[in-house]
C-alpha cells in the first residue's frame, strides 16, 4: 500500500476506528492508542482488499480485536471505568443524547460492540457476526438483550429526571 493510499484511508476511517474502539473500551485515550495500533497493522498488512468497504470492515475487526486484547490485561480485568469524552458530557439540549450514550456505555462489552456496529456503523447482523467472529443468532440475541437493558436504563433515568417522556410509551 502506497503512502498516498494509506493517508487517504487514514483520513477516511481514522475516526470510525477511534469511535468503535471508544465504544468498546469506554476510554477515549485507549481508543486513540488502539487506532494507532490498528493502522500500524494496516501498514504491515500484505494482503489485498477488494474495496474501501472491505478495508473499513478489516480495520474495525482489527480494532475490536485489539480492544479485546486490551481488556485481557491485568489492569483492565480488575478495573472497569468509563471516561466520557468532554464533548459528550455537555448538558442542555443534548440531555437525551447523553442519556442514551450513558445507557450504551453501561452495557457489558459484548453488547456495546454490537450496539455500536449496528446503530452507528449500520452493519447487518450477518456482517457483525463476521467482524466479531460469532454466530449470527448470537448477534440477534445480544442485540435484543442490549435493547432491553438500554430501555431499562432509560426508563429508570426517565422516572428520576422526567425527561424524554414523549419518547416512551408505557402500557400497564
Amino acid at each position: 500500500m502506497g503512502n498516498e493510499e494509506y493517508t487517504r484511508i487514514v483520513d477516511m476511517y481514522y475516526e470510525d476506528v477511534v469511535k468503535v474502539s471508544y465504544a468498546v473500551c469506554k476510554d477515549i485515550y485507549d481508543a486513540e492508542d488502539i487506532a494507532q495500533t490498528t493502522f500500524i497493522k494496516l501498514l504491515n498488512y500484505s494482503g489485498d482488499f477488494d474495496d474501501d468497504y472491505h478495508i473499513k470492515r478489516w480495520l474495525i475487526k482489527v480494532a475490536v480485536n485489539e480492544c479485546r486484547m486490551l481488556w485481557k490485561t491485568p489492569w483492565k480485568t480488575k478495573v472497569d471505568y468509563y471516561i466520557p469524552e468532554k464533548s459528550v458530557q455537555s448538558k442542555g439540549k443534548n440531555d437525551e443524547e447523553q442519556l442514551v450514550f450513558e445507557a450504551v456505555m453501561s452495557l457489558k462489552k459484548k453488547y456495546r460492540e454490537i450496539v455500536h456496529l449496528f446503530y452507528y456503523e449500520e452493519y447487518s447482523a450477518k456482517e457483525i457476526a463476521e467482524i466479531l467472529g460469532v454466530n449470527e443468532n448470537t448477534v440477534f440475541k445480544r442485540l435484543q438483550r442490549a435493547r432491553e437493558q438500554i430501555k431499562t436504563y432509560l426508563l429508570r433515568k426517565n422516572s428520576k429526571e422526567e425527561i424524554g417522556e414523549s419518547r416512551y410509551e408505557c402500557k400497564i
Partner: protein
Amino acid sequence: MSVKYEDDFIKSKYRAAMDRTKINETGKNKVRALAENRELPGGKNNATKITHRITKTAAGLITFICVLAVGGGIAWAMTVSPLKDYFFPKNDRTFETVFAEANKEYNFGDFVITYSGYVYDAAVGRGYLQFDFTDSAGNPIDVARLLYYNDDINFGIDNIVLTRKISVHGYKLGNTDVVFLFMNNDSLYTIREGSNVLVKFSVNNEENIVKEPVRFIVLNKSEWEDVLNKVEALDEEELCTFSYDLSSLTPIFYYDRNSIQPEVAEILNKFNPIEIKNTTSTPQIIEAEGLKVTVGRMDILFEYNTGTCNARQFIIKRKDGTELIFNRNDDESWSATGIDKNKTFTSGKQAGKMVKKDYTMGFVLDPDEEVTIEIN
C-alpha cells in the same frame, strides 16, 4: 407491564452523541505520519533496516554485558568480598547454647560468657543466675541486646545487679513466655509481664536452678528494633500483658556498645529504667504487730505467723508522696494498691503458719532511697 420504545430514537441519539465525540487531530496526524517512517522493501530503506538491526544487536550485546557485570559483581560481593559476612553471617556468630554447668567459660570466639551459676545475695535475701561477658582477651564487654529465656519458660529476668554482668533472679513467672532485656553502658532495662510474678523461687532449690538449661539468644538489630516498635505502640496497660513469639525471631549474635539509638533509649525509659549501680542498696526492715516487712530496692518481702500477727495493713510511703498500701484480707490473701494497679495476692492461705510474701510489680526505688514503713 410492557414497555415500547422507538428503536430509531436510540439509534439517532446514540449516533448524535458519538458524532459529537471529538477526535484528537494530533493522534490522527501521528497515524498519518506512520507511513512516512515505515520501512519499505528495496532501495535505501534497506540500509536503514540493516543499520537498525545492527543498532539493536549492539544494544542487546551491551545490555547483556551490563547484566553479566552486575550479576558477577553481586556474586563476588556475596561470596568473595569483605562484604560477604553482611550477606551470609558466619555460622559461628549464631549460637544457641545451653548453660548448664556453673563456673564454666563458654567461648564463642570473639567473646566469652562465664556462667557463675546461682549466686545467693544475702543482702536482699535471694539468689540469681550470673553471667559475665568478656572479650577474648578477658576484658569485660557490654551486651547491647540480649534475650533470655529457657525451655520450660520458668524464669524471667527480674532485675540486674552489676555492670557487664547479667544476673537473673530466680523468679517464676506465671504465663510469661518471653522476657526482653536491653543493656547499655550505664543502664539495663527489662520489659516483662511484670504482673505475673507470682512465686519467689526457693533458695533451697539452688541445685535445681543450676541444672536448669538456660539459653541466650541475641537478636539481630533489625529484628530487635522491630520488637521495640511493637512495644512502643503499647500503652502501659497493654505492656503488662505483652508477650512475643520467640520462634519468629532469628537468633544471631549481635552486640555493639555504641549502637543504642537515643530514640530506642527513650522508648525504654518509659518502662522502669533500672540503673545498674547501687542495685544492692541496703534493705529497709521494720517489724511490728507480729509482721516483719523488708523493703528492698525492687522488692518487698513480708513475713508473719498467722496465729500471732495482729497487723492488718502496712503502708510504704515514699518521699515523693506516693504510697503503696498492703491490706490483709480475712482469708489471708493480701491486696496491694497504690502503684500500677490494684493487686490481690491469692496465694498463701496457710492459717497458723509462717507466711512469706514477695511483691515486686512496678516497685522500684531510687538508689538508696529511704522510705517510711507504717504497720497498722
